[in-house]
């Protein structure tokens, strides 16, 4: 198929993906946001859904970005961005923050991914043989929370697949991803196999299948993910 994944107007933008994820989060969830697109999600969550954002550097209840010039650098999220704590936020140290994460108290971690496998294995911290990246809190989050949403481009710039039968990069954790949000689709990992739940408007099932190594379960109805013009 003559589809150029590097520069295609049909691909979802980071903003599109963030908006779609924001819709997916169940009401009342407590959510940890990884660096990159995940951080954008907070901007699109309906405040009436009662969702709390938790940052592993010790804050439950991160709120909006402060206005320029009004930043207090003592209040940041794990992506090093200044934040304003919401009303009802709480602040604590790293030991308590990770005890909250590792103890199973956080509902969802939304994490950037390098590769995801069909059974939900996550690789998101380094490339084999390269002195690159770091593990940070990814392993604690991936194993500690109830659900992991993985966010990634569907394929690499070089056209390599990232949704695989088995990850080739060093793992962050096995069998933890429940949903994958890419610039092409939303795939749900289930016991029966990966389900192609939604496709970016303008793309089609065959394209997603071509760019996914695992065999996808195609439901009777596949919805389309809306895209901003």
């Amino acid at each position: 198929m003559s589809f150029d994944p590097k520069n295609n107007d049909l691909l979802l933008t980071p903003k599109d993906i963030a908006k779609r994820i924001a819709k997916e989060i169940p009401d009342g969830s407590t959510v940890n946001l990884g660096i990159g697109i995940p951080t954008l999600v907070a901007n699109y969550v309906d405040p009436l859904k009662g969702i709390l954002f938790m940052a592993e550097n010790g804050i439950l209840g991160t709120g909006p970005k402060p206005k320029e010039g009004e930043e207090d650098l003592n209040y940041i999220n794990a992506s090093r961005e200044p934040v304003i704590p919401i009303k009802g936020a709480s602040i604590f140290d790293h030991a308590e923050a990770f005890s909250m994460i590792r103890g199973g108290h956080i509902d969802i971690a939304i994490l950037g991914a390098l590769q995801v496998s069909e059974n939900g294995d996550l690789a998101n911290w380094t490339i084999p043989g390269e002195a690159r990246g770091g593990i940070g809190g990814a392993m604690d989050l991936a194993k500690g929370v109830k659900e992991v949403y993985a966010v990634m481009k569907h394929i690499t710039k070089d056209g390599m697949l990232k949704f695989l039968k088995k990850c080739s990069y060093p793992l962050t954790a096995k069998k933890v991803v429940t949903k994958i949000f890419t610039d092409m689709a939303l795939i749900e990992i289930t016991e029966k196999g990966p389900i192609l739940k939604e496709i970016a408007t303008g793309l089609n099932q065959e394209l997603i299948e071509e760019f996914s190594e695992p065999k996808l379960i195609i439901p009777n109805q596949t919805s389309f993910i809306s895209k901003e013009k």
Partner: protein
Amino acid sequence: MQKKKNILKNKIVSSSLEAVSEIKDGSTVSIGGFGGIGIPENLLDALLKHDVQDLTIVSNHAGQGEQGLSALIKQKKVKKLICSYAFHKNSYIFRDLFLSKEIELEQVPQGTLAERLRAGGAGIPAFYTKTAVDTDFEKGKETRIFSGEKTVLEFALQTDFALIKCHQADNLGNLTYKGTAGNFNPVMAKAAKITIAETELLLKTGEIEPESVQTPSIYVNKIVVGENIELRSEK
């Protein structure tokens, strides 16, 4: 590890009786308090009126005098007690039932009890400690030497419910304690699937500064303003 239910709905319940209504036969329930303070007296009182049996109770002590935990034990609702101090001279109700084998006892050193609860809330299934080494409490436990020091393996303690007492709660479930009335309450909140907090004062969300929160809202599922602030389960 245990997974706490999301509670989007208002956490405030209107009575202690309603707050404890979900506690079922066979539940494990931790109860805060030490030295007569920080005890969820109204919740305990409600539990006396709640039809339930075969409870496993986690508490620092075995109840003293006639009220609170002692009354619950007297009602024979408690199958097993996990505590650090079982036979206070005023724990005669527990003692009599223990001697007649109507209640089981697991006595745990106080620090190990706190640490086991902490582990239960922190995703640590087991840890090693030198507390209780070379004593009767070592019996039946795995031991292991680290850097020449003998230790025992202790397991996380998680409960179905925690009944705790706080000074202030906001509508979201952030809590503060006054003085040493915190004691076991914060760690029990973390180790429970459902934490029910009895508060003296109910504040609006945002009235507690983020740095002053002692129990973050994520650990609290239900809040009730204690009906009778003067009620004390122990004298």
